[in-house]
C-alpha cells in the first residue's frame, strides 16, 4: 500500500481514496437495502417524481466515480465529477433543511444516523476537500501512521 509506505503523499491521492471509501460504502449500503432507499426518495419532499431514475442514477454515479478515482490517469476527471455530485447532494440537503426537515436521509449505512445539519457540514467538508485536491493537486500531506484512518479498509 502506497499510502502506508510513505510518510507524505499528494493531497489529491488522499482525497481520491476518501471519496472512493465514501461512495463505495454509501452505494453498497443502498444496494443492500434498495427497496427502502427507493421508498425514501419517493417520500422525499423533493425529487419524489424522479425516485426511479434518481435511485439508479445515484448508484451508477457513485460506483463509476469511485472507479475513475481508482485509476490515476482518470483521477482528475473523477475529482471533478465527485465534486459535482457532492455539490448536488449538498444543495439537496440545503433544500431539505429549508423546506422539510423530517424526511429520513437516503444516504445509506451509518451516514443515515447523522442529522441533516451534521450532514450538511460533512458534505461541505467533502466539497472543500475535492476543490482543494483539484486546485492544488501536488500539495503534499504529512500523514502520521497512527492516525491513518483507512488502514484496515484499504488493505
Amino acid at each position: 500500500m502506497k499510502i502506508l509506505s510513505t510518510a507524505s503523499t499528494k493531497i489529491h491521492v488522499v482525497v481520491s481514496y476518501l471519496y472512493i471509501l465514501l461512495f463505495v460504502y454509501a452505494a453498497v449500503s443502498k444496494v443492500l437495502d434498495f427497496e427502502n432507499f427507493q421508498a425514501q426518495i419517493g417520500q422525499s419532499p423533493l425529487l419524489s417524481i424522479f425516485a426511479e431514475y434518481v435511485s439508479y442514477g445515484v448508484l451508477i454515479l457513485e460506483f463509476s466515480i469511485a472507479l475513475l478515482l481508482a485509476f490515476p490517469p482518470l483521477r482528475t476527471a473523477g475529482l471533478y465529477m465527485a465534486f459535482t455530485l457532492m455539490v448536488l447532494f449538498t444543495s439537496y440537503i440545503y433544500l431539505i433543511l429549508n423546506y422539510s426537515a423530517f424526511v429520513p436521509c437516503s444516504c445509506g449505512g451509518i451516514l443515515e444516523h447523522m442529522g441533516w445539519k451534521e450532514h450538511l457540514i460533512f458534505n461541505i467538508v467533502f466539497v472543500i476537500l475535492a476543490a482543494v485536491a483539484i486546485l492544488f493537486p501536488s500539495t503534499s500531506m504529512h500523514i502520521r501512521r497512527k492516525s491513518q484512518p483507512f488502514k484496515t479498509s484499504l488493505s
Partner: protein
Amino acid sequence: MISTAKKYSLLALLSLGSISIMALLYLWSENRMQKENPFIRRYTPLSAVKTAEITLDNPYYYIAGQSGASIFLANRKAPLYVTEIDTLLRTRTEHKIELDRYDFPFRSTEVRIASPHFYVYDGLVPVIYKGLLSDFKGSVVVNDKTFFTGAVIMDSLSVAIRGQKQGTGENLLGLLSLQKGTRTQYHPELLEKQIDGLFDTSGTMNFSEDLKRFVYVYYYRNQYIVADYGLNLKARGRTIDTTSKAKLKIVRIESSGDRKLAAPPLTVNLNSTVISNLLFINSGLMGRYEIPEVWKVASIVDVYDLNKQLYLLSFYIYDIPGSGKMRNFFADRTAVYAVIGKHLHKYSFGKPIKNQLMNTRVKD
C-alpha cells in the same frame, strides 16, 4: 495542465450548474406531484395525529354531522337515536328523535345534522323529515315520488340527491327543494357513464358549506366532480391513483332483471368527507414506493385542495386490533373523526393540514 484560474472558474461553473439542476428538479417535481401525481403519496409527518378516543356501545354508529362543539352520531340499528359527543370526546348525551308520522315502509333510514336542523330521510320510501336540534321533533317535509339512493343536505332548503333514470336505471344527480310546490331538477350531465351507468357511477357525496360546492367522489375511478349550489358543473378533479376506467364485472340476472357485480370490485375511493376547501378521501389503492405492511394496520386518507384540484398529502388512520378498519369518517376544521368498530377516534390536524385550510367563507 489547466491554469489555476481556469480551474477556479470550472469549479464555480460546476457548482452553479449542480445547484441550478437541483433547484429545477425540485420545482419540477413539486409541480408534478400536485398536478399530475403519478401515484406517489406524500406522508407528511404530523398532518393528523390521534388526540382523543371514546368507546361506543356497538359498531353500527356513523357520524351524522356537527353543530357547535358537538358531533352527532346516528346508528344503523337504531335509526331514531342520536348520540351527541363533545369534540374532546369526553361527554355523551343521548337524544331520541320524535317524528310526526311513522307509517312508512322504511328501508334505509339516514340521519344528517346540518345545524340548526336535523334530517331523517329514506330515499326508497321516499320521505324526508326535518326538525330542530333543540327539540329533536321532526316532521315530514317531502313525501312525493322522488326516489333516491343517496342524499346530501346543502342547506335548509335544498338537498342534492342521487336518483335513477327511468327505464335505464342509470344514476343521475338532482336538486331536490324542500320548499312546497317545487320540482326536482335533474342534472344528468354530471355523472359520466363508463359501463352500465349504475355501478360505475356510484360514489360518495359531500357538500362544502364554506365553498358552497357539492362534491361527488366516484367509488370505482380516479375522479371527483365539483358542482355549484345549483348543481352546475364547476370542475372534474383527479385522484392520484391510475384507475381512470372503472374495473367492474357486471352481470344481469335474467329471471329478475337485476344487475349485480360478478366479481369483487376494485374500489378506488372507499369514502370521502369535505371541510371547507379540503377533500379527504379514504383510498383503497396502494401507491408507488409504499410499504404493504402499513396497509394491513391502517386506513390511508388522501387530502386534496378543491379550489385548485391539487393533491396535498396523505395520512394514516390506524386500525384497532379486533375492531378492524375505519368504517366512516367526518372532518371539521380541527380534526377528522373516525368510527372504527365500537370506537370513535379523533385525529387532530397539525400544521401541514391547517396551513392548507382556507380561512374565509364564500359569501352566500
